[in-house]
């Protein structure tokens, strides 16, 4: 049975049918203007944060009265030669990831032996960490190895990660960490 047959709409019908067919009158409904949530939204382009197919996303945002920018919708970009508008369950639910309330709200610090986190300021966290980095680098830096080779390496600090942030951030991580003399520099590629 086709939809057209079910509705009893003939060739002349354009969608508004009388009460006698459906039992209620659609004419009134058609007067209520349907507004899409994303009408008037700003459209931006993004890429899915999950796997390495690299599906392109269209992102719809609207600025609210209080200045807050609300992310309304993420969907596949139909123009993409890779995903042609489609997404898998992870990409299709990526809006929830983007606006998740489960995010860590502020920097946190755990003291040696402690059972709980303390909320701290960015300045505290960055200041303390920078001191740890310097101290560990000073303690574990090897300028010349046992054979007298100039090696200038920091053996006691490692950096790992990067598969989930952009290439530009990743390049920057490589540059800075090598600048500090790190040799233990890794990301998800190996695992």
């Amino acid at each position, binding site marked *: 049975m086709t939809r057209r047959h079910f509705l009893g709409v003939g060739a002349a019908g354009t969608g508004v049918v009388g009460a006698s067919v459906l039992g209620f009158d659609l004419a009134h409904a058609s007067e209520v203007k349907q507004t899409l949530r994303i009408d008037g939204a700003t459209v931006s382009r993004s890429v899915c944060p999950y796997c390495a197919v690299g599906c392109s996303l269209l992102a719809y945002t609207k600025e609210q009265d209080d200045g807050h920018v609300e992310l309304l919708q993420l969907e596949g970009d139909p123009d993409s030669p890779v995903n042609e508008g489609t997404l898998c369950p992870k990409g299709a639910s990526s809006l929830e990831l983007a606006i998740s309330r489960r995010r860590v709200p502020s920097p946190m610090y755990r003291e040696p032996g402690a059972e709980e986190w303390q909320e701290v300021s960015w300045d505290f966290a960055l200041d303390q960490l920078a001191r740890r980095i310097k101290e560990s680098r000073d303690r574990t830096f090897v300028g010349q190895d046992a054979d007298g080779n100039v090696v200038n390496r920091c053996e006691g600090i490692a950096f790992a990660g990067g598969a*989930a942030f952009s290439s530009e951030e990743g390049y920057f991580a490589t540059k800075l960490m090598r600048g500090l003399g790190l040799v233990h520099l890794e990301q998800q590629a190996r695992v």
Partner: protein
Amino acid sequence: MTNHWRDIQHADLILVNGANPAEAHPVGFRWMMRAKTERGAKMVHADPRFTRTSAVADMHVRIRTGTDVAYFGGLINYVLSNELFHREYVEWATNAGFVVSPDYQFDDGLFNGFDEATGTYDTTAWAYETEAGGHAKVDIDHPRSVLNLLRQHYSRYTPEMVERITGIPQDQFLEVAQMVGEMGRPDKVMTIVYAVGLTHHTTGVQLIRSGAILQLLLGNMGRPGGGMNAERGHANIQGNTDHAISWEILPGYLRIPAPGQRDLTDYVDESASPKLSGLAENFFGENYRKFMVSLLKTWYGDAATADNEFAFAYVPKPAENSSWISIYDQALRGRMEGVMLSGMTATSIGPDSNQVLQALSNLKWLCVMDAFATTSSEFWRAPGMNPADIQTEVFMLPATHWIEKDGSFVNSGRWSQWKDQVIPPEGQSMHDHWMMAELFLRVRELYEQQGGKYPDPIRDLTLDYADPRKPLLDELAQEINGRNLTTGERMESFADLLDDGTTTAGDWIYTGSYPESGNQMKRRDGVQDPEANDPTGMGFYHNWAWSWPANRRVLYNRASADPQGRAWDPERPGIVWDASQRLWVGDVPDYPEDVPPGPEAPLPFIMTGEGTGRIFSNSVADGPFPEHYEPIESPIDNPLHPALSTTPAAFLYDEQAGRPNRFGTPDEFPYVATSYRLTEHEHYVTQHVEQLVQLQPEAFVEVPAALADEKGIANGDRVRVSSKRGKLEVRAVVTKRLGALQIDGQTVYQIGIPIHWGFVGINSGQHWLANALTPFVGDASARTPEFKAFLVNIEKM
């Protein structure tokens, strides 16, 4: 990938090994389905499990995990024995004709050059016989030609041996072989699609190489619809591999310098490939110094001059392998003080998660940069841990999401796609690169105030951004592209990079991504107008984003045309020589664009010292030809050489550190386990996404129905799965998707273990870590852990 996602639609035959694309890369899988529906392509899925990929494949072959060298080796043997290889391609485009030195030996599983004391091979022992000038001798009929040695090596991989090792019945294997055997014709093309099912083994590199050798024999490398297509796992794992967040490389796959290299000359001598054939371009080798100097000039600016080897001394030179497992091994040995983790959780990834937890407890400090809590940021209060005993200081720094910043992600196909900043950072979250800039600048300030060990590289590192504490990703993208310091203009091409300090390039393979005309990664001329945007109809879409290198879509594409410059298959051309324009046309040529074909023309693989694809190769640590070895934990002895069952070059971290190995034996742990991923989860982060947790809420293991019968396990029962290193207590999903294999006369069951759960997430009861089971060992070349083949026991709880 040597090719790219959309290109897979051009294949006539698709071999899927070590991958389950219908479930793990669902949208990418559409291109394999397109090949089937549009051109009648066939798909063969070799997997221990029957999955959704298998369900739509033309054949599923149940293969024992980790035995793909036997599978591909058997196919190599079949193709060679039946003379089905693409002879003209093989003679011209591979090193099949190169003669190998008489020192080369292979006996009973051992290649020449093995040093018992170090457990490593001297790879220089796998060399060619050379003529005057240092070029390799070429004679395909010589008994020691690569082709003849290859025939000898794989003559042992008969269909019967393939069955003994892999469990694939001979008649099934021969069905596959027949299909593969047709792919050596110039008008046919096959692709191999693979993922971590091949990489996650102590023989991972060789598992992959065995497929690549088959592809070279069939003439499929460099062709649309061909190639070796690695399906990578994460949104930007490709981009950040390219930008060298890896212990052994610098951006653009330059090697990290080694101790003993006093200057750039030493470095280039030891790192760059030598020219081994008169007709080899040896592009990488010949330009190595230019790429390295341009990188050093980018990083050290005015402090890098011709007089000081462009600050070569500033670059750290590792003493030894410093890869992922080493980090935690060093921590266990008390030599690692602090670790920074960014969007990555060590505890869940492991391997040997319980040992990783101990390693983290040994650190002085741990910094986690992430949007969400992870099993690493929370390690100190994981189940079984006593916080009072753990002295590690932990810093949790809330990071922004991908959508709160711009920048590019690079997919498996090397397409670098720039994304917009869609929303501003939420709350107190900070961009990872601003955190790192702050840390670096504060460390620099501390050195200025206090002095300390060798602050020079820290002092001199360039941070030429409008606000060095808040660099823009746009500024970094320009830095990566590089500049001509004389003109001030951004570089158009890496071919213009110099070694005199007048050019910069943060990553030479990205030079051309952001030239003077603008950021090419932002382009979006796609399927909205295929006629305009894909004029060749080959799916290149050259004006959608930008791919490295040079916006080339299919690597090695000179090999898509014959020595005279005509497409092997005119229906699916990569590049062809256009005599009227005197140019190579089609894809961006992987070849000098205006050099005509001819007997004296450069050979097609312009990056290698040979000028050809490398069937025999000394670039890998565990053998110039792939050989089947058993996983470290295996139910059987290697049928090929039982006395040397596993690869002698695998790295056993515990043993090397003086700790006892904890390996299970078949009598205690009779079943083979393999780990894998589900469609609905991405590693561990999706445990924070309600919709996905609802779809796949609970940890489970997949148990073959026949084994479940034996053990009285019903679907849904709680079971204990244990290895020598740890255990899981989760639900059993009893299924016929897994079955028994007959391996060398024994019945072997494989159990499937999805990885995604842990003690952090919405469903907090799911605290068991899959990687508590896996061994602390690494592949010889890559030190990738053996996540996918280990021994377990299972019992109903």
